[in-house]
């Protein structure tokens, strides 16, 4: 009994020590000024492990480039490509960007210099400065050779672990002691140390990305705003679903916690802001570039059936002004919640939508239907007439016409 207790105590103490060693108590902010790109224009690998990685990635890029979930909008793709040209540092001409239709907030960088941006990210960006921040963060992974550095770090750590476990085992074997528990502890330590390294690299990318966008003349605060939005969205989403929000503080995370990233980015932004200089937000340019696909982006988001998230996204975009499109999708999200109180609020949103000149035809359709449900037949008919004028070839147009005749 006592032997077992002491072993357990040893393991618990050792585990805490490993965790503290591997992760550090608080991860320090990386000052943007301390980082510079590690590669120049036209970079090509020369080391054996990196050559292997690049060769493997060729086929991956071919697969991505030919994927049928990419958004095939030449104007938009050109816009994204020229944006990477602005904030891509020395590799501005080498990096490729692909836009995938996935309604999540994410972007990924591959080790050979191509990045995949998700449409859910485009939906959430309020202006070009925010999008430039994400692209610069991804580009920085490439500029700082993060993938190969991370791989080498993992290789080094697992090499050491394997030998340590084997030698420890042999020593234990000679001494007649089973080292299995200690080996498991060492494994945990190795995993934690790998994840810690991964979070450090993310923090590096945030810092260099911020430096790149401020050099390009974008508002440095835009990157921490993006995180503020993301945190707000995940908290509202959790609240609506009556769940606890995942705040991302964990020694098992691959990325630093959003709140840490937001705070660090805010401090760094004040450090980089040059007094008297005017910074660009590029909101008009951004809206002109994504205007054509915004209804699709909103529609995809609404259909995720994540009411809190949708509400937050729409209200965030509306901080730059409400319009018919935003009010309409607000109504859609409320209507899909399908309960009496939300139907009432949905009806209000559709009513608000049709007051704007850019209200989509479907806003008139639902406005009309809710009016008729409320017994306001004449007004409802007028709204539905308007719907038919705007969308005479809609799939349900014959039914609506029938409804109006009867």
């Amino acid at each position: 009994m006592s032997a077992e207790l002491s072993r357990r105590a040893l393991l618990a103490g050792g585990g805490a020590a490993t965790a503290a060693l591997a992760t550090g108590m608080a991860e320090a902010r990386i000052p943007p000024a301390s980082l510079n790109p590690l590669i120049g224009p036209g970079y090509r690998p020369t080391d054996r492990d990196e050559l292997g990685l690049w060769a493997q990635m060729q086929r991956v890029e071919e697969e991505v480039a030919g994927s049928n979930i990419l958004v095939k909008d030449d104007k938009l793709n050109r816009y994204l490509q020229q944006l990477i040209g602005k904030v891509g540092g020395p590799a501005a001409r080498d990096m490729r960007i692909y836009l995938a239709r996935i309604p999540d907030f994410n972007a990924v960088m591959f080790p050979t210099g191509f990045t995949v941006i998700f449409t859910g990210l485009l939906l959430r960006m309020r202006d070009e400065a925010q999008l430039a921040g994400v692209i610069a963060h991804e580009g920085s992974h490439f500029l700082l050779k993060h993938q190969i550095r991370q791989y080498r770090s993992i290789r080094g750590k697992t090499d050491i672990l394997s030998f340590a476990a084997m030698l420890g085992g042999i020593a234990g074997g000679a001494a007649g002691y089973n080292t299995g528990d200690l080996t498991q502890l060492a494994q945990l330590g190795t995993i934690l140390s790998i994840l810690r390294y991964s979070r450090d690299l993310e923090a590096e990318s945030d810092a260099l990305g911020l430096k790149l966008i401020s050099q390009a003349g974008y508002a440095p605060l835009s990157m921490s705003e993006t995180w503020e939005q993301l945190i707000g969205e995940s908290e509202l989403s959790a609240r609506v679903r009556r769940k606890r929000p995942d705040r991302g503080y964990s020694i098992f995370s691959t990325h630093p916690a959003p709140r840490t990233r937001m705070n660090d980015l805010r401090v760094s932004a004040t450090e980089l802001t040059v007094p008297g200089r005017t910074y660009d937000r590029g909101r008009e340019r951004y809206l002109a570039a994504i205007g054509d696909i915004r209804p699709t982006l909103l529609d995809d988001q609404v259909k995720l059936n994540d009411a809190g998230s949708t509400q937050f996204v729409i209200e965030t975009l509306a901080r730059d002004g409400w319009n018919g499109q935003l009010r309409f999708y607000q109504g859609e999200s409320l209507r899909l919640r399908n309960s009496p109180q939300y139907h009432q609020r949905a009806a209000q949103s559709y009513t608000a939508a049709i007051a704007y000149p850019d209200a989509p035809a479907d806003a008139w359709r639902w406005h009309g239907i809710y009016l008729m449900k409320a017994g306001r037949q004449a007004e409802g008919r007028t709204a539905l007439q308007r719907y038919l004028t705007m969308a005479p070839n809609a799939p349900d147009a014959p039914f609506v016409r029938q409804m109006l005749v009867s």
Partner: protein
Amino acid sequence: MIEVNGFSARESWRKREKCMRRPLLLAAVAASVATTGCVQTRQFADLQFSPPQGDYKLLVLRPDVQVSSVTTGGLSEPRADWTEQARGHVITALREQQAGRGGKTLIMERRDAISGVTAEQVADVERLNAAVSQSVALHKYLGVTLPTKRRRGLEYTLGQEAVRFGQRTGYDYALFMHAEDSFASTGRVALQVLGIAGCFIGFCAPNIGGAGQFAYASLVDLRTGDVVWFNVVQAGSQVAGIKFGDIRSKEGAAQMVDRLLGRMKPGKDIRRQQRQQRAQRSQGAAQ
């Protein structure tokens, strides 16, 4: 080793799952086929399958070859030079083998290497096959058997899409194949030596494993769209440093191609018919 750096951690688990599904499945297939160090193959065929003979036209879609080195810690690190070398030898071996059977073979190294179909249509067929192959792996090799498919051989199809592909290209069969080989690094072998040495003093790790061949092929009949034959080859040892073949060499590549495609067995119904015919013949001879 697909390394990606995502922007936010929020979706990273779900994403990793997506990225990892294929390698995981392959690894699991490898594990299920391999029990000890040796060479194993396990093939399934459509009940009515008879191996292509005589004047047939076979299209091999972008053979996927990957050669890597196993690090001391057990990671597999892709090697561009070895992969290039092996790919060349595997393609030569395939060509020679098919020529020996009398078929006319085209090995496509790029998606736009054939007339009649666009690179996009080739990509579509490849993706469709990848999805179907995953099903085959799951239900035929990983033990998740389907009651509706018991004793029915290989009952999978790529459907009309593959038939149209065959009409457009003028080919009778399409062969999809993937081959990988890995070699223990010096450090891994040293670790293995230590593990065996430890046996003398009471800490025994004689089989840390780490290198081996894994390959699979699926043959699609483009006249019906059906996947008519599927094979998995696993050749490896649990002792790092001991190998069963090397696809980086001409002979090793030929050996792997032979293990994978050399012994195509006909489907069960065909074999039963053959047995009956043999029995009738011997009866006839006896009378």
